[in-house]
C-alpha cells in the first residue's frame, strides 16, 4: 500500500506527463526553500525526494471496509469500486482522531492519505482518511445523491460517513477528541463540514486545517477546463497527438543515454534535466482533472441513468468494451457536468434549483463569517496555485489573517510533501 503512489504516478506519467519533457533547462538558482517556481510545474512534479519530510515509514495501516451506507444495486461497470473503504492508523494510547478528506476523485488509499496519516500520527493522532465524495467508491457506497457537486448534500453525506467511521473504529482505539483536515476539494469540504459541525456539535473539532482549498469550487474547475482548452491542441481529440509527443520525449530521454528510472523522483529529475514546455505542463494538469471528472461523470450517469453518457436502453455488462463511453466521458467539461448532470439531477422532480445558487453554495465566501471567527481553523495555500485566482488568495489572506500560511510557490499541492509544509502542519496540530 505504501507503493501505490508509483502505480498511479506511472499511469499518469505515460498518459500525459512525458510531453512535458522536451528541451533542456535546469531550475535556476540554488535558493533555499521549495525549488519549483512555476505553479503548474510544481503541481505536476511535486516535491523532490531529498526535500521531502522524513516521516516514520513503518506504520500499521489498516484498510477498513464499511457496509454500504445506501442501498443500491451496483451497476456492472462500477463493480470495481466496491467495497467502501477508509484508511486507518491508530495510536496505542487514548488519542484524538483526525479525519482527512481526500481531494478531487481521490480514494482513501491515495498517496496523500498515506502522507498525511504519517504526519499526523507522528504528532499523536489516530488518523482516518476518507474517500472524496467525487470518487466512485464514495458515490457508489456512501452517497444518497450520487451526483457530487452540490456542497450542502456532499457535506451531509461526508458527515454521515464520518459517523459511520467513528462507529466502526476497533474497540481498542480510544478517542479523546476530533480534528479535521483535507486537501484540495477535500479542504473546501472540510471547511463546510466544520461549519456544519459547529451547528450540530457531534465532533466538536479541536483543530481544522484546510490544505490548498478551492475558494470557489466552480471557479476553480472552470480554470481547469480553460487550461485544457487553451493548451491541448484539438481538445480531447488531440489526446493521441499529445501522447505521441510525450512518447517522443521519453524516447529522447532514453536515447540521450540518461537511464532515467520510473520511480517517484522521475518527474523531478526529468523536469530539471529536460526543459518542459509550459503549455504541455498546463495540458497535463488539465488532463489530470479531466480524467477525474470523466470517472465521476461516467459513474454519476450510470448510477442515475441520466442518459447523458450511456444511453438508458443500454445495459453495460461487466466485461463489455467501454470505448464509446470513454470518449463521451472525456468530452464532458466541468461546465457540461453542471448543465447536463448536476442541475438536471437536482431539478429532476420539477424543482428549480438555479445554477447561480448552486455555484454560490460551493464557495468559502458562503461561510466567510464562520471562517473568520473560529480561531482553530487555519489554511495553507500557495499564491501560484492554478486553481486559485488573485481574488481567492486575497480572500484567504483577509479572512484567515494570521491563520493563513500562504507561500509564494508550490502550485496546487506541489509542496505538500515538502519538509517545511509538513513541519508547519505538525506544528499546527501539536497540542
Amino acid at each position, binding site marked *: 500500500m505504501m*507503493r501505490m503512489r508509483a502505480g498511479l504516478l506511472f*499511469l499518469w506519467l505515460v498518459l500525459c506527463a512525458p510531453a512535458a519533457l522536451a528541451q533542456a533547462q535546469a531550475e535556476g538558482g540554488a535558493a533555499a526553500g521549495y525549488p519549483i517556481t512555476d505553479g503548474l510545474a510544481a503541481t505536476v512534479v511535486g516535491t523532490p525526494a531529498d526535500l521531502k519530510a522524513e516521516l516514520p515509514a513503518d506504520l500499521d495501516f489498516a484498510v477498513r471496509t464499511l457496509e454500504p451506507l445506501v442501498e443500491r444495486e451496483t451497476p456492472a461497470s462500477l463493480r*470495481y469500486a466496491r467495497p467502501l473503504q477508509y484508511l486507518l492508523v491508530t495510536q496505542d494510547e487514548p488519542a484524538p482522531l483526525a479525519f482527512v478528506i481526500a481531494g478531487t476523485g481521490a*480514494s482513501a488509499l491515495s498517496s496523500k492519505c498515506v502522507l498525511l496519516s504519517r504526519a499526523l500520527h507522528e504528532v499523536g493522532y489516530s488518523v482516518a482518511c476518507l474517500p472524496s465524495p467525487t470518487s466512485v*467508491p464514495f458515490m457508489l457506497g456512501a452517497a444518497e445523491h450520487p451526483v457530487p457537486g452540490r456542497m450542502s448534500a456532499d457535506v451531509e453525506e461526508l458527515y454521515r460517513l464520518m459517523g459511520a467511521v467513528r462507529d466502526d473504529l476497533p474497540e481498542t482505539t480510544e478517542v479523546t477528541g476530533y480534528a479535521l483536515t483535507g486537501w484540495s476539494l477535500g479542504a473546501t469540504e472540510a471547511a463546510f463540514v466544520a461549519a456544519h459541525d459547529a451547528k450540530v456539535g457531534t465532533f466538536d473539532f479541536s483543530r481544522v486545517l484546510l490544505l490548498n482549498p478551492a475558494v470557489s469550487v466552480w471557479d476553480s474547475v472552470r480554470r481547469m477546463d480553460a487550461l485544457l482548452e487553451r493548451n491541448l491542441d484539438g481538445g480531447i481529440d488531440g489526446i493521441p497527438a499529445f501522447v505521441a509527443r510525450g512518447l517522443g520525449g521519453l524516447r529522447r530521454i532514453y536515447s540521450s543515454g540518461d537511464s532515467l528510472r520510473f520511480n517517484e523522483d522521475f518527474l523531478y529529475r526529468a523536469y530539471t534535466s529536460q526543459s518542459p514546455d509550459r503549455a504541455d505542463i498546463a495540458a497535463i494538469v488539465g488532463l489530470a482533472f479531466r480524467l477525474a471528472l*470523466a470517472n465521476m461523470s461516467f*459513474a454519476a450517469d450510470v448510477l442515475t441513468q441520466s442518459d447523458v453518457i450511456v444511453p438508458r436502453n443500454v445495459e453495460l455488462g461487466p466485461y463489455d468494451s467501454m470505448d464509446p463511453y470513454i470518449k463521451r466521458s472525456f468530452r464532458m467539461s466541468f461546465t457540461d457536468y453542471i448543465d447536463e448532470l448536476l442541475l438536471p439531477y437536482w431539478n429532476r422532480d420539477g424543482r428549480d434549483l438555479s445554477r447561480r445558487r448552486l455555484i454560490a453554495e460551493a464557495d468559502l465566501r458562503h461561510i466567510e463569517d464562520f471562517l473568520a471567527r473560529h480561531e482553530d481553523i487555519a489554511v495553507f495555500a500557495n499564491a501560484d496555485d492554478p486553481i486559485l485566482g488573485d481574488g481567492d488568495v486575497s480572500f484567504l489572506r483577509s479572512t484567515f489573517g494570521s491563520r493563513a500560511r500562504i507561500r509564494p510557490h508550490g502550485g496546487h499541492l506541489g509542496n505538500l510533501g515538502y519538509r517545511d509544509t509538513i513541519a508547519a502542519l505538525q506544528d499546527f496540530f501539536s497540542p
Partner: protein
Amino acid sequence: MNGPARPIRRFAAQQRLLWATLVCLTLGACASTPPPRTIDADTPDRVPVVETTANPLAISDPFEGFNRRVYRFNALADRYVLMPAVQVYRTITPGFARTGVQNFFSNLGEINTFANSVLQAKPESSAVTLSRFVINSTVGLGGLFDPAGAIGLEQRDEDLGQTLGYYGVGAGPYLVLPFFGPSSLRDSIGLAGDQGLFYAIDPLQLDEHPWARLPYWTLYVINTRDTVNFRYYQTGSPFEYTLVRLVYMNYRALQVEQ
C-alpha cells in the same frame, strides 16, 4: 580502427537474418492480424497518429471480452490471495531480508537478460549484464547483494518479447494473462520462451532437488508481487482497463526501441 569491427558487424547482420527468419517462421500465424502500430521513427508517414497505439481507443484488442474477464480474475486473485500473502511476508520478514530476496531473483533474471542481449547483438548490454551476474553471484553472495549496482553497473532490461520486437515482430493484439497481467501476443510467446530457457538451464538445479520447487516458486511469486508497484483499481477509474492497456502497449514499444 575499422578493421576488426567489420567481421563483428557482419556476424551481427547474419545473426539478425537468422533470427528474423526463425521468428518469421514461428510467428507466421500472427501476421494475419494487423499489428497495432506503435508510434516511433519507423511509423510510415501515411499512418495517422490516431491509428497508432498513441490513441487509447485504437489499440488492437480483439479479445477484449476475454481480457476483461482475466483482468477481473487477476484483481480478485490479487485481493484475496496474493496481497494477503505479501502482507504476511512483509510482517514476518525484515526489510533487509526482503531486499536480499529481491536481489536474488533479480540476479537470476540476468540470465534471461543476458541471453536476449546476445540475441539482439547488443555488446554493451551483454557485457554489463554478464559482469553484473558474475560480480553479484560471487561478491554479492549468490545474488543476495548488488555490489555491481554500487559500482555503477546499472541493470539492463531485456526479454524475449523485446528481442522479437527488435527483429520486427509486431506486438500483435493485446492480451491479459492470468496472474502475469498485461501482455501482447508477441510478449506472451516471449514470456513462454524465457521461462523455457530458465527451465532448460536450471541454474538452481531444481531438477535434482525437487523438494525445493515449492518454496522456490512460492517465494518467487510473493517477491514478484511485493516488488511490482501496481494495485488493481487504485486509479479509481471505471476506465482503468483501457488506461493500463494504453500504458502497457506504449511502454513496451519504448522498451523494444531501447
